[in-house]
């Protein structure tokens, strides 16, 4: 039997009348709250509050484990025990594995804490377990909660207009926030963006302006009172350089369509699986690099390479960036381990503004080795392009921060 289009529509109407019951849809409180979190007038204050909660819980949780237990475990028990039992105090292997120490009146002096010892088994282990693990755990737990409640798509919609100014769209919030945990999954997540232009902009901004969980954890530990200023400089840089990249790079930046789900009660098993998978992934990918980076930095220090490069580049650091000459060493070492570089910077005597500049420089300096490898996987042309942008950014933004300091009379 063949039906005309009109007959088909009549048939559809008849079937739907018999099978579908219609009623008035009543807006629930959940729906209304869902709408409030998307409208800019109410959504932005709510987003500011959610981010406040995110960072407050992050700081309290990470501080609880790191300052409450791990600092004491590593500094008062682990470090003294290793310093005593590891053979060959002051020799090459000892300085790489346990304690680089220092020389005072011609004598080898042991370090008093794990952040200053720079050994693989002391600083390396302390950074990985004592600082990064709690930070990463709470970061991914909170992120999973926000995702499963249904807040993240709303944040994407809310921030869409702002991200369009830098050639991206609301979905770019996913790689950005993931990168705050670890840049590696952040770079992988850039694949959700549609065009090459968007992926390049996103990857470059992640590598330069988004500090990873390891770095945030150590900043929270050693320079907690400066965190706000450092993050502010990074956020401003993210948008300034994103805007420039959007103007300079050819290509399309399309709109996006997103299905915003209703708010839901999160399922504990889902949260558990997500957090476990992400923390496991971070440990498998990033922890070997933490330990290896620590060893390489130690070897380079022992052979005087970092001191040589530091002396060579010190005039640039002092003259252009306005930071003390002593920061040259840690800033060179930041090529390998940003977190350890922040720890090294924290013991150098300098003004607050110089500390802010130094830590911002460490952040925007160079992607960590794991991120570097991940970017290479995305394409060598993109990697070279991102590195070229990075070099220009470091000099331009570092100089700009110095200039702002001079104008404010604090540099």
């Amino acid at each position, binding site marked *: 039997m063949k039906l005309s289009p009109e007959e088909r529509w009549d048939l559809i109407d008849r079937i739907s009348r018999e099978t579908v019951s219609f009623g008035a849809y009543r*807006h629930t409180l959940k729906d209304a709250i869902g*709408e409030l979190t998307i409208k800019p007038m109410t959504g932005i204050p*709510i987003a500011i*509050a959610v981010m*406040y909660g995110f960072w407050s819980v992050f700081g309290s949780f990470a501080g609880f484990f790191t300052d409450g237990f791990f600092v*004491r475990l590593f500094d008062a028990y682990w470090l003294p025990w290793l310093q005593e039992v590891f053979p060959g105090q002051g020799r090459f292997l000892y300085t790489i594995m346990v304690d680089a120490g220092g020389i005072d009146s011609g004598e080898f002096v042991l370090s008093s804490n794990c952040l200053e010892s720079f050994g693989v088994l002391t600083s390396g282990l302390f950074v990985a377990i004592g600082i990064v693990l709690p930070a990463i755990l709470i970061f991914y737990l909170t992120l999973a909660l926000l995702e499963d409640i249904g807040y993240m798509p709303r944040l994407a919609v809310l921030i869409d207009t702002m991200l369009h100014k830098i050639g991206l769209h609301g979905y770019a919030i996913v790689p950005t926030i993931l990168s705050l945990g670890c840049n590696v999954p952040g770079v992988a997540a850039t694949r959700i963006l549609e065009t090459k232009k968007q992926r390049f902009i996103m990857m470059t901004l992640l590598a330069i302006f988004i500090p990873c969980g390891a770095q945030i954890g150590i900043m929270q530990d050693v320079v907690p009172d400066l965190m706000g200023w450092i993050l502010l400089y990074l956020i401003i840089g993210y948008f300034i350089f994103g805007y420039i990249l959007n103007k300079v790079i050819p290509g399309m930046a399309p709109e996006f369509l997103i299905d915003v789900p209703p708010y839901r009660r999160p399922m504990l098993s889902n949260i558990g699986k997500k957090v476990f998978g992400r923390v496991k992934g971070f440990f498998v990918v990033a922890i070997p690099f933490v330990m290896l980076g620590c060893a390489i930095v130690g070897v380079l220090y022992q052979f005087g390479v970092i001191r040589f490069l530091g002396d060579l580049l010190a005039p640039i650091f002092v003259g252009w960036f306005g930071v003390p000459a002593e920061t040259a060493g840690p800033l060179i070492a930041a090529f390998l381990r940003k977190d350890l570089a922040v720890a090294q910077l924290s013991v150098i005597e300098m003004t607050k503004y110089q500390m802010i500049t130094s830590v911002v420089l460490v952040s925007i300096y160079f992607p960590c080795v794991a991120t570097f490898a991940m970017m290479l996987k995305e394409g060598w042309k993109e990697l070279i392009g991102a590195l070229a942008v990075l070099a220009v950014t470091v000099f331009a933004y570092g100089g700009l921060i110095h200039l702002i300091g001079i104008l404010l009379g604090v540099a």
Partner: protein
Amino acid sequence: MAGQSTSQTPSSSSSSTSSVAVIYFAILGIVTVAAGVADLLVTASGSEFAYGILEVPNDLFRGGWGGLIMLFAGLLYLSGVRNMDDIHQFAKVTMGSILIWILSGCDIFARITESIPSSSEETGPWFNTLPGFIEAYAPPYAPAVLLLPFSLVVLYYISKRASGETRGGNSS
């Protein structure tokens, strides 16, 4: 949001209670705005302010960022109290309370995490003593913590509205 919306028809019982609710949340909104402004002013001036069990935080994070959220919470209350029987207006009042819960929840969580480990950094006990643990919860408190019990009143109105809707849904 899913589907199309229709405006709410307030039941007679919810209308009768709404005048009390309006006055209550309007006062709460004014107090919350005042607390937010106080947070911001104290932070901007860099001074300290404590009175009885109240202590206004003056650091950039809790006083500045937190103060701004407190101000938003108060404004949400004040903007929501007009025609509170409408679900969208009531959602604003609820959201004001949620912002206070975020602020006070973070403050309480910070106290819990600080109260458990021992304050000694060298070798010694790992956990705080019982008096030290209890002392960590002693006043003074931030404005958000003091406003927490008052903000919880919204739960009564949420449950009342939910039961009203259930009755309305059954009868229709």
